[in-house]
């Protein structure tokens, strides 16, 4: 589909995502080697957006599994629709069609009573992009489900049999590092640490995502965001926050930032009170060109 990492990077740019060399190579290898990409990095550096971009660039659907504590197979893989099964059973009884218990039982475990959750959906609708978001939030037992799935691209449902993906889906796993994910899972993946972009790249991202924003404004926002990241804040702003900030300023009709405008829109880029208190008095210095 894509001949080189550069070609994939180009395609991602066209759908509004600027990937650096490492990320483009990771995406390219994921497509070629059918290996999942494991992305770690600060919140807001574009890990989730990468999955969305690669889905758009390859023209395949994106299936997202948001992980949370307590996530289990019934919510991630598949579940039987018991209510409909009971209804079916009662309907068969009422119509007198329940003469042969064997066929009745087979009918009960028909595919139409199976509710496919994201992981099964991804196997059935491949080619597609499967995003397993914030895997560190799920319990570590859950990673074991993923091991089987990512190794064989198949799941076994006792009543139905084995469901195998015709084409392995492109899998993107993201983690915020709230806990160390098992090596067994990481070993099967291409590991990439997503860093904050440098200033030139940030300007390019802002220009790409927000074409209507004035160039001067994009430059100023990128420069100020880069300086904010050096301040050792509780939550340094990510690319997402920079985009929000530029958008907020643009919505106010600004073509350049001054300290007053920045102060009134600072909530778009900093979300922790201590950070706001620290940065407010420094705004004039931060915005100096």
């Amino acid at each position, binding site marked *: 589909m894509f001949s*080189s990492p550069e070609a994939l990077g180009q395609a991602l740019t066209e759908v509004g995502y600027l990937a650096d060399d*490492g990320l483009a190579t990771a995406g390219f290898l994921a497509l070629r080697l059918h290996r999942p990409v494991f992305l770690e990095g600060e919140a807001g550096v574009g890990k989730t957006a990468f999955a969305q971009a690669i889905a758009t660039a390859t023209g395949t659907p994106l299936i997202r599994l948001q992980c949370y504590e307590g996530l289990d197979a019934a919510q991630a893989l598949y579940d039987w629709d018991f209510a409909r099964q009971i209804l079916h059973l009662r309907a068969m009884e009422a119509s007198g069609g329940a003469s042969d218990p064997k066929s009745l039982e087979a009918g009960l475990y028909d595919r139409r009573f199976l509710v496919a959750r994201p992981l099964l959906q991804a196997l059935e609708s491949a080619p597609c992009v499967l995003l397993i978001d914030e895997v560190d939030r799920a319990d570590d037992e859950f990673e074991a489900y993923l091991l089987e799935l990512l190794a064989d691209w198949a799941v076994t449902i006792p009543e139905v049999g084995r469901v195998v993906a015709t084409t392995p889906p492109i899998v993107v796993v993201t983690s915020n590092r709230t806990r160390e994910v098992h090596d067994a899972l*990481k070993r099967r993946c291409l*590991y990439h640490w997503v860093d904050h972009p440098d200033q030139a790249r940030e300007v390019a991202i802002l220009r790409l995502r927000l074409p209507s924003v004035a160039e001067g404004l994009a430059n100023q926002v990128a420069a100020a965001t880069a300086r904010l990241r050096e301040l050792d804040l509780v939550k340094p702003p990510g690319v997402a926050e920079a985009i929000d900030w530029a958008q907020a300023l643009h919505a106010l009709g600004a073509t350049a930032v001054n300290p007053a405008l920045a102060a009134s829109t600072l909530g778009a880029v900093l979300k922790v009170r201590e950070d706001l208190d620290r940065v407010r008095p420094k705004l004039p210095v931060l915005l100096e060109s």
Partner: protein
Amino acid sequence: MSGDPLDALLGFVAGARRAGVPASPDRVQAFARALCEVGDVYWTGRLTLCGSHEDIAHFDAAYRAWRQGVDGERPSVTGPPSTPRKLVVPFGVDGGAEGDGRGSDDVAAYASRHELLRTRDLAEMSTVERDEVRRLLALLRPVTPSRPGRRRTAYPRGEVDPKRTLRSTLRALGEPARLARRHRRDRPRRLVLLIDVSGSMAPYADALLRFAHAAVRHRPQSTEVFTLGTRLTRVTRALRTSDPEAALTAAGSAILDWSGGTRLGDGLAAFVTRYAHPGLARRATVVVFSDGWERGDTALLAQAAARLRRLVHKLVWVSPHRGKPGFAPTAGGLVAVLPHLDALVAGHSLEALAELVDTLQER
């Protein structure tokens, strides 16, 4: 790069491994396959051989060394050698006087000595006592009480479980069957240990790391250990080895700032920003082992402690001086953090550490 390209590749991998990159055989296979697709050694190697953010620095070092080998005349590929450092932690004055006291068969004497050992300051022990304390430390089970989890499991009492009720109805061919019930399963609360390894805490560092090792060994998945000195080091992975000696050696080579100065405020602030705030310490019980000796600005330390307190379930501070007679929290750092603590306990002796285990078990 002359000769067999595979040899050169394996040489590079060996160098990376020496530099500390976890280049397991399956990772190397993936590397070779990736290299066939994309000729870029740096990115294919980094993507396939690395497994965490820390690995990337090691990989970069190995790559630089390898490039030098390729560009220069050196035929072999070598990474920076990483000699495993032997862990040497001073354990205070070596008394040695009781060296052959163990020969005594007198059980009562042994028992009373045992009693004595429990309350003896960890910093003032002889080699023999220290060995015995090490054995006893390995027997401690530092655990936190469980917290209510999100996952539900079948249970005789509790709310009705619609799914299992329906399933049993289905088994009875649609006849209403017994109500199945479920409850929320309890989960272990995460325990995060922060150990000060600066000069003033050096006599206790070995014992505290052994305490941490006992915690990690007991609950590997819900315990995290960091050391604080002039920098912040995550040693959880090193301590997962079951043998205490091997684990301590591994941790020792991971900690680069043994017995250095204290920049407690910086270390704690770094922990809050890099780990606690993103989620590692949320809902967790956090225990800081430190005498609160701060060379830098105590305002920073107070601020970090305040932020940490808001993130965690319980913040416990362990100071070895707490257990000494006439103790008053006078160390600048300790005064600064005191308003933000749930508990300030002693950790100077085996008994004090055993008491700490009990404190941790309180809800």
